């Protein structure tokens, strides 16, 4: 097991390096000049000589005069930067955000916190609804309830989350006035402790609701399908023939076996807790990772966008490892130590 994990970790490092080089090269193919972009607002107030001086200074500071490979090596921290220091990704320097005019490492944590706070609720609630619902539908296959759920999940699955969001805002916020349209907390509040937590939760009900509803369809259908497969197995018939209680048959025998395909998706969901939803965050004014990534791309802040992308690459590599390891835990037939 340990050997397998070490092997996978080495493989992850290699993949990360290859992907980082590719991503860096792709971002650098975009024809834009960050030094010019930074000086542009001041152009009208600078004389040409001053502009030229500042421009050259900035290009030097940003290391734009060096070839791509050198810039990559500096960015990663393999070689010293223009100031002669090893100060790259490997040393914990995620880069400098041109948009926020500060280090990327300063920008990310607060957004990450928001994203995790939002996603953790919606993931737990969605799983708490979809798993029992999927199991119930599989057990009562083709019943009235199952048919209704099938229709609703198809509808839910087909409607874009953007539309679900707009409908929910119109109903819950504008028409009924129960919930706020957007934001993370009551503007100008001075709440502390549990009151602050409640206030934040109140503001997040609507986005969490939209995210949950948006994800119900897919997962319910997935669990249902896995359970139907599992319930049709011979060992279920055997378990029933032994006279086991139906609850035991379903939850101990069928569900444990159905879990194997479902676990990939569940772990994927938990991994996605770290990544923001672009649409939801933009729609509800939630200052999270999705919105940050979008801002980075739209404002040509490539160091910011690259840092986020690198983070997601690490998350997905780690996620894959966890998924593979969890197979072994869930299904004794699967061995991951070879």
């Amino acid at each position: 097991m340990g050997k397998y994990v070490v092997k996978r970790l080495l493989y992850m490092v290699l993949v990360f390096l290859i992907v980082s080089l590719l991503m860096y090269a792709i971002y650098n193919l975009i024809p834009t000049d960050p030094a010019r972009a930074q000086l542009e607002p001041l152009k009208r107030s600078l004389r040409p000589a001053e502009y030229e001086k500042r421009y050259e200074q900035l290009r030097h500071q940003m290391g734009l005069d060096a070839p791509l490979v050198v810039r990559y090596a500096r960015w990663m921290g393999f070689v010293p930067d223009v100031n002669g220091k090893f100060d790259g990704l490997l040393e914990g320097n995620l880069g400098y955000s041109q948009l926020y005019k500060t280090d990327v490492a300063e920008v990310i944590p607060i957004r990450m916190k928001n994203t995790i706070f939002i996603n953790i609720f919606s993931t737990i609630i969605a799983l708490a609804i979809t798993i029992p619902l999927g199991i119930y539908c599989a057990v009562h296959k083709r019943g009235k309830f199952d048919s209704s759920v099938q229709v609703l999940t198809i509808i839910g699955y087909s409607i874009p989350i953007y539309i679900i969001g707009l409908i929910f805002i119109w109903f819950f916020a504008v028409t009924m006035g129960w919930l706020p349209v957007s934001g993370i907390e009551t503007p100008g509040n001075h709440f502390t402790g549990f009151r602050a937590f409640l206030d934040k939760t109140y503001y997040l009900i609507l986005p969490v609701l939209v995210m949950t509803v948006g994800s119900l369809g897919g997962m319910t259908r997935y669990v249902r399908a896995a359970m139907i497969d599992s319930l049709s197995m011979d060992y279920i018939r055997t378990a029933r023939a032994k006279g086991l209680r139906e609850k035991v048959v379903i939850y101990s025998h069928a569900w444990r076996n159905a879990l194997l395909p479902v676990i990939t998706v569940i772990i994927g969901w938990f991994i996605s807790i770290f990544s923001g939803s672009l649409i939801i965050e933009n729609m509800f004014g939630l200052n999270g990772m999705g919105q940050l990534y979008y801002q980075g791309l739209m404002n040509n802040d490539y160091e910011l966008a690259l840092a986020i992308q690198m983070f997601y690459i690490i998350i997905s590599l780690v996620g894959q490892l966890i998924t593979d390891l969890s197979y072994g835990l869930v299904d004794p037939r699967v061995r991951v130590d070879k």
Partner: protein
Amino acid sequence: MKKNLSKVLALVLALVLVLAAFTGCKKDGKNDPGKTPTGTRENKIIYGSTTEVSGDLGNAWWSNNATDKLIRDLIDDYSVIVFDQGGQMVVNTTVAEEVSDVVMNDDGTATYTVKIKEGLKFNNGTPITAADFVAYSLVAYSPATLEAGATMYADTVVGAQDYQDGTTKVLSGVRLLDEYTYSISITPDYAQYYFGLSYASLSPIYLPLYSSAALTVKDDGEGVYLDGGELNADEINASRYVYADRVSAGPYTLKSLDVGTLVTTLEINPNYAGNFEGQKPSIKTIVLVKAEDETMMDAFKTGEINFLSQVSEGEQINAALDMVEDGGFDYCHYTRNGYGKIQFQCDFGPTQFTAVRQAVAYLLDRNEFATTFCGGYGSVVHAAYSTAQWMYQDSEELFNEKLNTYAYDPAKAIEVLEADGWVLDAEGNDYVSGVRYKEVSPEEAGDYALNVTLDDGRILMPLHIMWASSEGNSVSDLLVTMLANGQQTADAGMVIEQNVMTFTELLNWMYRDTSVGEQYGVPTYGMYNLATGFAEVYDYSFNFASDPESPYVEMGYNTNYIFDKELDDLSMDMVYDAAPGDDAAYLDYYQKFIIRFNELLPDLALYCNDYHTFFPSWLKGYEESSLWDFQKAIIYASIEGAK
């Protein structure tokens, strides 16, 4: 055990959600902003900005983020020179006892002496003296600030360049004359500048915010310097993000700024002496939140934000006007201080000829364009001006008489083209139909890729304009329909070929920026569509540099690549021949410049939006304009029946 734990967790989660919903629903009157009973209203407004606050409060030396600027404007004031409601530069008499007339020195420099009023205070009660104003220069031009990544240019103040380079610790161009008086000397290059008075303008800063050392401003007769330690880049950078107890001197004090929730709270500064008219704010709290385009209208309806600012889309304006009609809301509207335009590059291809640019103007029904694009809430201007400018208002009659409005007239387009020599076809015969050609000299022909060289050596240029338009742009879509694909354009023998690209790519072509690719150095597109806005200082100097070899052209100042001596001279003389404060001379040059601009058409203005700003009807006295934004207008506003 496990089962019980799950049940408890589920119950707690459900309870939290229900409790939160229940607590939230109790917010009084929030969902009915217009009908909250008078007398129970909080003395607070919530302003939603679509630009995310970055939290950088370090003057304008780093960030040009609109929301950061809005906060800075509300917490920092007391500039000696300010712009009034009409966009005119005036002395802030709340701050300055006296600003002397400019003294022209023998070495070509100019000196202004400013006497500050006694009794001014920072928000923490600390008295403000001239040293606090002078400290602004010492921090702004310091090498540490430059090292901290600020973009402060130091060529306007005498000695600032040496001070910034670190060759001296004394800023010789700024003098601390006594406790309430300072002087500032402007370099010869800027001494004759019409807006030169603005260089005499400093605003007070609180030195302990920028350094942990006990710094004081001293002047031993050679200029000002900092005594007691040195500034360093790390502390300068840290000062940008100090929120708690931030010492400032504006109408409001920063109460909190949370970059996590994007909420900023400001409260009245009780020590504020007033703006340049002595006006003090009456609204106790201003909360700034992030607003999203998609849900802004809903948030406004429910009272989560109190402003729908600068709405320009017809559909949104109509929806908001319906709300006004239903009661509970009010609005103001004004013409935008800028315009959407077609920008021509005038040194190659067909667009180098004034007649072609004029023909494009005649071929486009700009009134119809503006009406369609702005949904009925827009107008057309005919040169580089805004109807809100005081200069325009003083020139309206003259412009009505002198400016060509280029009213839609396809026949006139053909007439100007024929007069300019666009009378041939591709074989060099008389033009009958299809694309027009003109016989051009080798200099005029340049490297334009579409030129045709006949067997007899004549070079013909087709009336084929390459157009760079940015993707996902509704102006471009409308231009395709109304101009590029218009029958009148084809009938005039003109081809306008649209090339869709990202806005960054468009700028690369417009600036001919070879630093990101050699290809951009080749003049390719003669026509671009974009928008422009005017700054408070209307100054087009160097933007029409007429010498093609000029460094201003090389560095992309003259993105029209129009090399017209008269236009260049007028744009320069407007600010460098009109003496500081000589409004009549400035106005005279402005009028001539606009008339010349209108004739040459380096830009063809397409539309000028009519901005609408909506707010609850309980907000009284709020008058926003294109030159008088939220942060200035809110000082005059009050909340009816506020607690």
